[in-house]
Structures are given as C-alpha cells and as structure tokens.
C-alpha cells in the first residue's frame, strides 16, 4: 500500500524518434540560447531535452535592430537566425552543453540543400549530439527565396537530404504559414523524418504610428507567445492525426495547463519558447504542474495522456 500523504510516482518519460526523454518538456529553439544563459535559474539536467538556437554553416549576423516588438499577448521577433555558425558552435558551445545529461537536439538551417547536407554530415561526426532538428522556415536562396517549409516537395527534399547525411534521428520543424500543414507533415514523414516539431512562428508585423515606420527594422517578424496558442494547438492536433511519427508541440505554451492541451491533442512532447523569455522558471513550473495534474487525475504515465482527447 501507498504511504499516507505520499503520491504514487508518475512516469513522465516519453520516446521521440528513438530518444528517451525523462519528461516531455524541452525549450524551443532560439529562446534558450545555448543553454548557459538559463543555468543560473534552472537545473538543465531536469529538462526533457536541450534544444539550441538554430545554427547555420557559416556565422549569421542576423537582422538589424530593432528586432523585437511586443504585441497583445505576443512577441514579434526578427532576430534572423543570428548565430556564430557551425565551427564556433562545435568549439565553444558544444563542450558546455555536453556536460548535461538530457539529449541534445541541435537545430540547423541552410540557405541551400547543400548547406543542410553539410551541416548534417558535420554534426553527425561529433559526439554528444542526440538528434537534429531541421528548421525549414527559411528561404531557399536557389529557388527564388521560397520558404523550404511551404512546399511539400521541397520540405521532403530537405528532409531526405539531411537523412542521407546523418545517422542521427531527424526532427523536422514546420512553419504554420501554409494552407495545409498536414500535407507538409506527410511529405516530411515520407521522406524519413523521425519526428515532427511544430509550430514555428506566424508571420506578423507591427507599426510605430509616431514614426510611421515598421516597428521592426526587418519590416516583418515571427509572432510567438500565448497569442498563437490556439493556432498551434489546432495544427498539432491535425498533424498528429495525419502522421504516425511522434509530434513535438509548441506555440504559446505558458503554463502546465497549456502543455497538457498539447499532449491531449496528440503531441508526445512539448517545447516552451516565449514563456521562458518572460519567466526563466517556466519550464520547471510546467514540468511540476504536469506531474501534479497526472497524479490528481489518477494517471500513472504521461503517455496515457498523449492523444487522449475525446472528440
């Protein structure tokens, strides 16, 4: 029998593309830097996984400032994938990240198929990386700047290219700025994605009415945060029903309640982005809240919750 006052332990572990995560909550790429920025606030060893800012083959300076603008319950950013590039990542960031136990997921982006291929190959030679997350929300410079993730065939080609150049599990991260996200999801699944992450930011804009100029130097930016949660949740629900591979859900998750909605909708894990920018402890609070909910509702295993929505 249970000891009085002691709750039965709940299993929080999930599997994603062959990786075992001790719990289903991880940071969203680009909102957690390279981990070290949040070490003063949370024990990185307690995360479901570590997910770093998207890296590119060469250093990317990013967009000119201003890059941020607050909107109603949302954040617009046009950071523009600023990152030190593959070499410096390997030399200066990876050793730090390797100290931690949770699987390390490295997000990559390219401007051409070749860049994706080379990133995949180089990162696969390296110890300490558990999976690649392929960010396809960026323009293909060889095809007139069409965003890779908006055309099923192109999304599939990126996925296949990365797969060819790595033995690591491949997670493909989708953009929501499409008519039918399930078509993209199926295309990348068929091309070999081991898991699908969604959503990246929605395209948005804000204007400074005093200066009569865009609030962001880049004119447009990506909208994240609580504002986009219903859009993200619906995309996750649809994609989870359209594919067989696991789904990592994200977009506006601020609280454990939000995370639970994503799991019920079919996500096997969730990522927390903007919430962390506002509250460095958000991920920890979400993990604790999820555990509480499961215990209170009489679940023994978080996997019972995944896709348990009754429709």
């Amino acid at each position, binding site marked *: 029998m249970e000891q009085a006052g002691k709750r039965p332990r709940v299993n929080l572990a999930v599997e994603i593309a062959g990786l075992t995560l001790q719990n289903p909550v991880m940071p969203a790429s680009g909102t957690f*830097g390279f981990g070290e920025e*949040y070490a003063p606030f949370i024990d990185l060893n307690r995360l479901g996984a570590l997910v770093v800012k998207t890296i590119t083959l060469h250093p990317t300076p990013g967009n000119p400032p201003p*890059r*941020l603008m*607050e909107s109603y319950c949302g954040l617009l950013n046009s950071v523009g994938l600023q990152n030190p590039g593959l070499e410096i990542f390997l030399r200066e960031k990876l050793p730090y990240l390797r100290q931690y136990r949770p699987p390390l997921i490295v997000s990559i982006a390219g401007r051409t198929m070749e860049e994706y291929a080379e990133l995949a190959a180089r990162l696969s030679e390296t110890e300490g990386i558990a999976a690649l997350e392929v960010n396809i929300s960026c323009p293909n410079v060889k095809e007139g700047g069409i965003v890779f993730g908006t055309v099923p065939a192109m999304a599939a080609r990126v996925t296949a290219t990365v797969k060819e150049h790595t033995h690591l599990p491949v997670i493909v991260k989708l953009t929501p700025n499409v008519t039918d996200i399930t078509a993209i999801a199926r295309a990348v699944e068929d091309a070999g994605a081991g898991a699908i992450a969604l959503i990246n930011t929605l395209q948005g804009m804000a204007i400074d009415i005093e200066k009569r100029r865009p609030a962001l130097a880049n004119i447009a930016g990506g909208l994240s*945060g*609580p504002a986009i949660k219903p859009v993200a949740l619906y995309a996750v629900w649809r994609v989870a029903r359209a594919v067989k591979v696991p789904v990592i859900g994200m977009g506006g998750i601020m609280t454990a309640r939000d995370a639970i909605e994503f799991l019920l909708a079919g996500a096997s894990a969730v990522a927390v982005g903007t919430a962390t*920018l506002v509250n460095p402890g958000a991920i920890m609070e979400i993990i604790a809240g999820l555990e509480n909910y499961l215990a209170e509702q009489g679940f023994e295993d978080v996997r019972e919750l995944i896709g348990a929505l009754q429709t």
Partner: protein
Amino acid sequence: MLQDLEAEVLASHQLGQDVYLLRLYAPLIAEAAQPGQFVHVRCSETFDPLLRRPLSIHDAGNKGELTLLYQVKGRGTAWLARQQPGQKINILGPLGRGFTLPQNKRLALVAGGMGMVPLLFLARRALEAGNEVDFFYGARDREQLYQLETLKAMQVNLFLATDDGSAGFQGPVTKLWEKYIPERSYDRGYACGPRPALAAFARLSGEFSLPAEVSLEERMACGLGACRGCVATLRDASGNRYYENVCTGGPVFDAAAVYWED
C-alpha cells in the same frame, strides 16, 4: 548572482506628471547591484502586456532597498504605476554590465532626461570610491529635473541645463558640458539619455580623447542574452560593424565602439 524574485513595494511616489519613484524591498538584488545595471520587471499579472520592462537601478540602499525611477510611456509602465505598497512585483536582476568605477579620479556624468536614473547611482558609488564627480543634467524644463535634492545632498558638482532655460543653462546638456571639458580635464566621461544626446557626447569625448561610456536602450525580451533580440550595432577596432546584445554586452558600452549612424 542573478535573482528572479518577488519584491515588495515599499512606496511609490509620483515625482512628476508621468514619472514615478518606486522603492522595492529586494535585498539580494540591492546588495549585488552595480551602477549601470538594470532589473527586468514583470508588468502584469496576466500575459498582456507580455514582456518584462528593463529599468535601470536608480539607487540601492544597504537596508535591502532597491530604487527605480521611471516614466510611464506605455502599457507596462502604466501597470507599474498602479501598484501599491505591500504588493509584490516580480523582478529579475541585477542584469547587464555596468559602468567602470575608477578610484580617486575626476569624472563627468552627463544625463539627458531620464538618463539621470542610472547616473545618480553611479555618482553615489563614484563618490564613495574617492572620485570627484561633475554631474551635468539636462531636461526639457525645470519641472522635468527630478531628484535635485538628492543630487545636491550628494556632494557632486551639479550643472543644470534646460531646453527652455527655466533652470540653469539654456540648451542641450552636451553643449553645457562641452564648455567644461577643456578646463576640467576629466579622466572619464559617462552618459545616459536620448540617442542624439549620446551621439553628441560620444563625438565630444572622441574629440577630447576622453575615455567615455554610454548606456544604451533597446527593446528586450529575455534580458539574459538568450534570445538575441536586443542587439545594438557596434563597430570593432577595424571599423567593421557587428551586433551585440545590449542586455549582456551592455547596456553600458564604450562610446567609441557604438555605431552611431544607426
């Protein structure tokens, strides 16, 4: 050590039309605070407004008191102005790289408008370190010169400027400062204020080969260097431009390293 904590409001005083002095009880932050650093303040109980607001540390007492001084501009600071003594406010800090603090030197502090906020704290610490402090303080008019009593009580040499001449020199504070640079032979200059004032300050200190630091403002999300959202354009020794986080690389920068044309 960085803290993310609930600070109790000790008092909130309205100093001017839209300007408030907020006294918080936050010993862990107050003890660690260095002049030029800031705190990142949650300005909502819900998610609208969403982001924290960066506010400079205006003063940090030994009784665990942390003082902020801010102007209500938009929805976040408007929320802050509604908070009453006894309420708790979530703050993150102390953040950023502050001003260089020399000993036994002669320093020029040049404040434009709300730029006075971090410079008062710098003046206090600079005096404690045996420096001589010339404090140049400009504002639109007499009503918008805040904390004069506090400054006067602090043994700084105070020089005032107003746009309309209602107090002190009539004209920009940098113009006033300019007159003193040659005779006062400063060891270091510091400025905080609107960007055009900072640019003028940087130009003058360059002309006089004076080591000089400025505190910049940029919109911020994390305040911790994680999101890369708050960059300013700097230039390196060979003149190449690059982006640096204001939240962790600054907010205080070498005036000569800032790309002012932005």
